[in-house]
């Protein structure tokens, strides 16, 4: 019965996944501010719908559809296109959004220079926002647009972006990045840009002062992030975009100062595919471990056993909506840990069998409860972690070598003592008879 029901659930999950581009479901809630026109984002939304997502729109202050019912999320992904909304319906608070993330819902959040509830949420992801009303300004390159509308070159180092995207138009607020290792920087501010509280250059002196003080409190330069992702411990993803116009049709169609088309639509699509778990989504299908020349995992290992550890890893292919074996990880490591790693070894992919990573090693000469630990965390990729507990026990009482050449002195000792005792007993018995006879003869 249990087997049947679990099979049914698996089937359902499979049926659900098979139509979705995302590995985690296709229902999307879009919180669109009433002041924004849906048509202005038609390229972005249209692209999503084309890839199989079902979008549900809702104003920030609407009560329904609720994000969660009884702590169960109703949607797989939520898009916050409400950068200037001062208040939300009751079900949306910074706390509830963190709760959503821990329930594996993905969030795409657009910020703005205004102070909103989402600003304080960003702080929890160690994004440091500038003071309110300080948008990003850049006077380079020379162009006809306002200094807050900036073409930003896309760095190709981020693994989640398609290589070779042309610069994108951006307007909005930058943010500094804290030292949280879960942050995934996607788009950095141009080196010559800065954040200031007015668009004309009246406050320029203050900025010059701040620069001379040594950068303290200075919101400028390429260390600022504009679009930053965040991958939580449970592999749900968040993207904070500094401005909503990044996703707009206007910017997507706008030509760069050089006259070439902007990369906005491609960039927005790349962000969406990442945050909705389409790309760079990996998982550990299974791990196995056994002794060399065996196939079954033993209940416990003996010290100094040769152990074979195998992990099967697959990645999500959004085109076919299937998980495919993935052998592309070259720096996977395995730890065999009891309090501290006793063994740390690389876990290389097995050539010829895709998705399989295997290593053979000798268990340490130490008994205890060990764990096989896989812990692979790379920016942009799903975290892979697995922990399998196995006891490593000393040899059984009959598991030690029976005869040791080093013990020959003891064997000799035991044998010679036995032989000596036997001889002594024999002589004693024989001699006693003689003695008695002698005594008898003496008495006589």
């Amino acid at each position, binding site marked *: 019965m249990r087997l049947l029901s679990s099979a049914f659930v698996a089937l359902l999950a499979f049926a659900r996944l098979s139509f979705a581009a995302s590995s985690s479901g296709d229902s999307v809630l879009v919180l669109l501010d009433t002041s924004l026109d849906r048509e202005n984002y038609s390229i972005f939304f249209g692209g999503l719908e084309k890839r199989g997502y079902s979008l549900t729109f809702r104003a920030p202050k609407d009560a329904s559809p609720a994000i969660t019912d009884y702590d169960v999320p109703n949607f797989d992904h939520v898009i916050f296109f409400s950068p200037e909304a001062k208040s939300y319906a009751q079900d949306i608070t910074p*706390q509830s959004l963190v709760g959503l993330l821990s329930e594996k819902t993905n969030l795409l959040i657009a910020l703005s220079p205004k102070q909103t509830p989402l600003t304080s949420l960003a*702080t929890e992801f160690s994004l440091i926002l500038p003071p309110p009303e300080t948008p990003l300004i850049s006077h380079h390159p020379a162009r006809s647009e306002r200094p807050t509308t900036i073409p930003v070159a896309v760095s190709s180092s981020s693994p989640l972006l398609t290589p070779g995207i042309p610069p994108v138009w951006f307007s909005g607020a930058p943010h*500094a990045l804290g030292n949280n290792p*879960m942050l995934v920087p996607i788009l950095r501010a141009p080196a010559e840009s800065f954040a200031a509280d007015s668009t004309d250059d009246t406050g320029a002196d203050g900025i010059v002062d701040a620069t001379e003080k040594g950068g303290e409190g200075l919101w400028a330069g390429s260390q600022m992030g504009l679009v930053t992702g965040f991958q939580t411990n449970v592999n749900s993803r968040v993207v904070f975009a500094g401005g909503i116009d990044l996703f707009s049709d206007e910017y997507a169609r706008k030509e760069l100062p050089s006259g070439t088309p902007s990369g906005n639509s491609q960039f927005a699509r790349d962000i969406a595919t990442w945050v909705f778990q389409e790309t760079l989504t990996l998982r550990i299908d299974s791990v196995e471990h056994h002794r060399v020349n065996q196939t079954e995992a033993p209940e*416990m290992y003996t010290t100094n056993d040769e152990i074979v550890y195998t992990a099967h890893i697959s990645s999500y292919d959004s085109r076919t909506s299937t998980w495919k074996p993935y052998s592309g990880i070259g720096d996977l490591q395995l730890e065999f840990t009891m309090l501290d790693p006793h063994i740390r070894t690389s876990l290389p992919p097995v050539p010829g069998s895709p998705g399989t990573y295997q290593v053979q090693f000798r268990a340490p000469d130490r008994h205890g*409860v060990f764990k096989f630990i896989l812990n692979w965390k790379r920016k942009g990729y799903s975290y892979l972690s697995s922990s399998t507990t196995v*006891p490593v026990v000393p040899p*059984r009482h009959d598991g030690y070598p029976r005869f040791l050449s080093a013990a020959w002195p003891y064997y000799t000792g035991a044998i010679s003592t036995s032989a000596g005792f036997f001889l002594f007993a024999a002589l004693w018995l024989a001699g006693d008879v003689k003695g008695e006879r002698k005594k008898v003869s003496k008495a006589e």
Partner: protein
Amino acid sequence: MPAAYPLPTDLSPTTVANTASLLRIIALALISSAAIASRLFAVINFESIIHEFDPWFNYRATRVLASKGFYEFWNWFDPTAWYPLGRVVGGTIYPGLMATSGVIYNILHALNLPVDIRNICVLLAPGFSAFTAWATYMFTKEMKDESAGLLAAAFIGIVPGYISRSVAGSYDNEAIAIFLLMFTFFAWIKALKQGSAFWGTIAAVFYFYMVAAWGGYAFITNMIPLHVLVLMLMGRFTSRLYVAYSSWYAIGTLASMQVPFVGFQPVRTSEHMAALGVFGLLQIVAFGQLVRAHVSSKQFQGLLFAAVVFTGAIGFFGIVGLTYKGWIAPWTGRFYSLWDTGYAKKYIPIIASVSEHQPTAWPSFFMDLHFLIFLFPAGVVMCFRTLRDEHIFVIIYAVVASYFAGVMVRLMLTLTPVVCVSAAVALSSLMDAYLDPTEPEVEDEKKESSTPASVVAKSSTSTTTPATPATGKKSKKSKDKETSAPAGGVLGELVSNVASSAVAANSAAPTQKGIFGLDTRVVVLLNTIGMLLFFVVHCTWVTSNAYSSPSVVLSSTNSDGSQHIIDDFREAYYWLRQNTAEDAVVMSWWDYGYQIAGMADRPTLVDNNTWNNTHIATVGKAMSSPEEIAYPILRKHDVSYVLVIFGGLIGYSGDDINKFLWMVRIAQGVWPDEIQEPNYFNRGEYRVDSEASPAMRDCLMYKMSYYRFAELFGSQQAVDRVRGQQVPAQGPTLDYLDEAFTSENWIVRIYEVKKDDVLGRDLKIANAFDQGKKRKRTKPTSRRKAISA
């Protein structure tokens, strides 16, 4: 000869003998059933349940043995104990107890008696107490006679000092060890008396059983050599002694080395060196005797002196050298703490923290032994009066055990048997004197009848010393001297001279002792019976009130006098069993490790097998540190739940706050820089109220104990009933732990360790965020280095 009361004369001696032996059998049977019955209070008052702490482990191990067989048990590696170190159970326990239960279990099942293994475990100790009574009977019979033996058996059967460790459910090593102790001693005495290698081997076999059953075997290992040494020094070396000791030591030591936990200790540790040394000395002396028989005595004296000095020096320096080289382990801390009661507190707090390792309080001697403690010295004096080899044994035993019982509460157990034996000897002598119907001859008749023969006859009835008339003895002695040198040596001669002169003195002044009339006898005997009755009443009372509590289940009395059961421990352990993942590691102070493993079946960090001081200190550190320091320790050890015992609500004084200073001390022993005991005091006072020191208020143990405690009292002042202090209304808060379970009377509180924050924040910050607290604005960190001059 006049008699105080008439005795039937028409009985044949065989009838008397048969009736006496029948009565003895009946008496022994009744004593055995009384011994068993008085230990069943625990089962009747509570239920058939395993008691206390260590028995829970023994029970768990026995279940493994019963279900998986002996070899699996021997190779049992317990991955749930001492997580993540694990415990090699087969090599770190004395398997005798479990093996005994396993054998009984298998026999009963072979007989188609499907008895639950738990009931065997619960009832094993009472069952073996019957055997103990029998072994004590046999032992005392060797000291005096059957009647003394019966008295001793009755005493040991119900004396609280032994019952305290052997009530039903107290399934500990001592349950069978006291029987083995007494039987080994009996076999040793028997071997010594008869010079029998057979009895020596039996002693060795039971010694092996004892080694397999209890760490206290070291007592036998040192008692018997000490006895032999004293006998040799008294010049009582005989070939009987040689045969008995050699066969016991050789077979016993080889056998004891078969126990995995003991291994090579008998030849490698200082505790066992006395036995080895005496064995060597015995060989030398035996060889000396042999040489002496072939060499003239003058040469021999010089030879002997040189040889003794030479071999003694070699042996001594050999042992010292080996110890220095590390081949022989030096004395362990437990051993030192036997001589210096302050030693453990200073250097090994983990031993001192156990209540049963504390020095004994005076009242507990009376509590545990009642009037036997008064008869005990009398019995020892009686032994001096006869002073055969076996009496010397009792005297040494009495002296040694008295000392040890004064040092450690738990060693009261080893004192109890010798107290019972000595008291039985004394009481039986008293009864012999007052029950004997013969009255002394009247004064004027004395001179006529006081021939040496009658004196001898008298003395042989009261004591069993083979005393021949003085003159006869002397002549015999001189004859002995002529024919062959007596085996006793110089000292032996001295002793026998003293003995013969004593006999001579006896015959020279034949003052006759005896009791006239029935009234004197009745008064004394009624008093004795009265004392015995009080003894029985006392034993029953102490057993039912003091020693029959399982300590897993507590009981209190309601206002109407009915019994109220407090079952918080089992409630909490079963909560753990039902509601947590099977591999969820539970951290608690080590006292509760065995119970958690036994009842909740969850892995524990530390337990009552306190073999790894560092691991215990780690737990101590976690308990006595602030949350943010404790949390990484908890996570590193995969701890899912933390369990504390808190008695503040109902006044259960054995709780963790009262044990807390030991945790601090043990942690301080390993991390003296981080944990300091004085920090937990406020001006020298141990406080938990608003005056508690900051370290105390911040530590995990305090927080877990008093978390939300004040809320329970509503608007009233919260009071900790154990400490009698008022707890501040604003209780501690927890950021890294969540309260998971609190039992009915708040005795057991279980906290769940929070997982890492989903956003990788510090849990304190995450908690503040969840409670809606605003965070301080942060500024971007400057990536430029400050210009330094």
